[in-house]
């Protein structure tokens, strides 16, 4: 029996969990995958939007601006990577200047600070690779980039440190009301709670519809991305959007917090809620559209492509609040872009709602800060040597592309809510994230995972479930 059951361990679920752990509540997060950050949060643009995009007066606009404002302090409290690099919405056609102006005005109304229209000369100075067709741009200095994995994991680890329980590989099959509580039926048995928070991403409508006759509908909107090697770091330094208009929506070109260059996303509405496959057309579209805003994109430096799903609710608005006719069941649904940016504000809002309903008291033992993983690259040569003398594993490089040591991989595995799979290690350490895409390090990482977890290497998966990497031993079928 829990006070609160949160469904989903993505950025929304974990932000809610952390903010709720400020109160004297017993909390459990149910996640169908083997780790946090396995759905929408793991594959998106990783942008902290300034807040000029959402329609004035919407919850989306409000939480976007609030989330953006809170991000810096949060990133320090929870120790994840965040940087305000500024964004540019580029206008490519003179006749669309009124649209750019309208975007500027909307931003002002939404409360975005520091917005400025800049002319071509200044634009070229800021971004030398900007397209020759560029006319002007809207500059938003508060826009930023964040590590979505780092942020999600930080929230989860801090929540766990404050007593939140996490149940992985736990998929919700049904929810019913019983004796004034919610019974959540899963593949791992039943969980009972006074309150339920529905943060199920692309499945939030399915979960919602289990308890409400007022149906919700979410469309998985797939977006393909291409990621370029760090070797072309600095190709762009700001997040570059194309002004949406009659010439289409365009794609963004942005640096990531780790120095890669990211291009994407496309937008295709699909049926399959697990349909994270890239397509030939999608990848071609990306590169064509990126070419509209920047020139000379070094496409030979693409190291991987991937697709993510946005949880697009029909009304294109965040659906946050207690569900009518379902007392104590709180939706946190329709969290698509700017969901990542808004997460801090979403967490606070949901926690506020539950706290009121539950009449919860503050938790005096709440720990508001969390220390992230040790990154030896930030140490001086002397400090690093001292670290290695104490723990030699920090001197053994496992991932040569991202220069990740065995010590860091071990840390990632042994932390609370530690990595269980190759992807888990990758999201926590960047081992396997580089230009060889785990070609060299995966056998080593498998070995370390197996050793630290005390299992046979054949038990190690890429990302849980049936994603086994080794299927047997040589000649076992002969």
């Amino acid at each position, binding site marked *: 029996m829990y006070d609160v059951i949160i469904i989903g361990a993505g950025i929304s679920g974990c932000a809610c969990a952390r903010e709720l752990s400020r109160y004297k509540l017993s909390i459990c997060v149910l996640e169908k995958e083997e780790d946090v950050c396995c759905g929408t949060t793991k594959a998106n643009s990783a942008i902290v939007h300034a807040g000029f995009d959402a329609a004035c007066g919407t919850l989306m606009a409000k939480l976007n601006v609030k989330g953006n404002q809170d991000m810096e302090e949060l990133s320090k409290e929870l120790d994840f990577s965040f940087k305000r690099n500024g964004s540019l919405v580029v206008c490519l056609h003179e006749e669309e200047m009124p649209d750019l102006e309208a975007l500027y005005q909307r931003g002002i109304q939404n409360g975005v600070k520091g917005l400025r229209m800049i002319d071509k000369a200044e634009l070229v100075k800021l971004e030398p690779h900007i397209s020759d067709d560029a006319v002007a741009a809207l500059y938003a200095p508060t826009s930023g980039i964040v590590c979505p994995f780092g942020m999600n994991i930080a929230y989860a680890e801090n929540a766990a440190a404050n007593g939140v329980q996490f149940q992985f590989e736990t998929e919700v099959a049904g929810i019913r009301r019983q004796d004034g509580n919610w019974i959540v039926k899963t593949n791992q048995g039943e969980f009972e709670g006074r309150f339920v928070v529905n943060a199920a991403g692309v499945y939030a409508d399915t979960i919602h519809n289990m308890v409400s006759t007022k149906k919700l509908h979410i469309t998985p909107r797939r977006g393909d991305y*291409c*990621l370029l090697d760090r*070797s072309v770091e600095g190709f762009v330094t700001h997040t570059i959007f194309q002004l949406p208009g009659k010439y289409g929506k365009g794609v963004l070109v942005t640096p990531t917090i780790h120095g890669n260059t990211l291009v994407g996303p496309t937008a295709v509405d699909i049926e399959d809620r*697990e349909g*994270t*496959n*890239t*397509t*030939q057309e999608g*990848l071609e579209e990306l590169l064509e559209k990126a070419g509209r805003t920047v020139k000379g994109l070094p496409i030979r430096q*693409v*190291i*991987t*492509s*991937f697709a993510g799903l946005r949880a697009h609710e029909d009304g294109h608005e965040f659906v946050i609040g207690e569900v009518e006719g379902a007392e104590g069941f709180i939706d946190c649904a329709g969290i698509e872009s700017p969901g990542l940016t808004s997460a801090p504000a979403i967490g606070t809002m949901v926690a506020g709602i539950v706290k009121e309903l539950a009449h919860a008291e503050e938790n005096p033992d709440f720990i508001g800060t969390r220390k992230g993983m040790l990154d030896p690259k930030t140490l001086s*040569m002397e400090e*690093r*040597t*001292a*670290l*290695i*003398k104490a723990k*030699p*594993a*920090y*001197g*053994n*490089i496992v991932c*040569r592309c991202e*220069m990740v040591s*065995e010590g860091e991989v071990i840390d990632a595995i042994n932390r609370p809510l530690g990595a269980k799979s190759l992807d888990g290690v990758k999201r926590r350490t960047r081992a396997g994230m580089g*230009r*060889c*895409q*785990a*070609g*060299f390090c*995966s*056998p080593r990482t498998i*070995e370390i995972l197996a050793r630290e977890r005390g299992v046979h*290497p*054949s038990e190690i*998966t*890429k*990302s*849980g*479930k*049936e*994603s*086994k*990497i*080794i*299927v*047997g*031993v*040589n*000649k*076992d*079928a*002969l």
Partner: protein
Amino acid sequence: MLHYDIVIVGGGPAGLAAAVSAKEHGVESILVLERDQELGGILNQCIHNGFGLHTFQEELTGPEYAGRFIEQAEKAQVAYKLNTMVLEISKDKVVTVMNGKEGMFEIQASAVILAMGCRERARGALNIPGYRPAGIYSAGTAQRLVNMEGFLPGRQVVILGSGDIGLIMARRMTLEGAKVHVVAELLPYSGGLKRNLVQCLDDFNIPLKLSHTVVDIDGKDRVKGVTIAKVDEGRKPISGTETYYPCDTLLLSCGLIPENELSQSLGVELNPVTSGPFVNECFETNVEGVFACGNVLHVHDLVDFVSKEAASAGKHAAAYVKYKGKHPAVVSKDIPIVPESGVRYTVPKTINPDRMDEKHTIRFRVDKVYKNCYISVYLGKERIIYKKRPIAAPGEMEEVIFHKELFQAVPDLSKITIKIEEA
């Protein structure tokens, strides 16, 4: 700070041959830095035979071939550090390294030999659409799992790319009990050696589909199947030619990329064709005292040629140390070697008649398959070499030999041209 006359980055076949040769040519202070736990490099996972036919007139396995050079290096008392990663090399040749024993420290080198080898082109760089399940490996990763760890990465296999590692792994996976259904190759010809096509595919009845590629990968957790389609002359998939192969594994053998991130950080200029440094006939890059050899320079088919080139690089690095960068014989300028029709690149890029040995081997690759063609070398308008080749293919490295006296006859030569001429 530690100081060595020559620091060699990489203890594979190139690094070892360079070290042994530099020692033979009089340099005592040599250090080899190897990131793995043993010397030998990628040869340690190449347990098939066929290595060393040129060097030792024997068919050795990869580890045996490496063993011969490790033995020579030990005998010559070449110093080396294992499990040691080079993090950075500065322009003034300060090498920053790290290992679990000594921590992080710097080494001042007088000369540096780059011998870091290459990596495989990954799925991402190929832009193959589809899901990203487990079961997709570069052929070399699978080779490591099978040959060094004894693990089978899959049972029903499709291979994309007919590079040598892919061909070798088609045979290896078959021998270990897996079923290899097909090898698909984007190009109209294989990138592998003829002998591997015969011994690894034909002998095991594994079909090779030229001008085919993977257009979709199915399976969310583990690969369930891949779709292969024929491509047109522009290498675009032809609609309607798709075939679905149920399988649990996709191996990729789609090319090797010299690993030159370190080289670039120290200002070494790379040839976009090979992704390896431009070098002169001493195997010296544009950065004085920095040499390159082996697969970091250009990807080889045969390790024997790696050893030869590396020995030459080691010898010239030793001369660089001896003459402190000023070779006494050099009066004339370096002559550029210009690849023309059919020749994609040459190693070296320039040659100096004063400094060169009595003869020097120029290595290169052709851009497509040629039958009954001639490799021609021109000094100005004069054709000095006209060598008949019944067949020349991109998968087999070509060579011509330049003799010193050829150049002595033509002073003030502005360039040397190499091209393929069809009969």
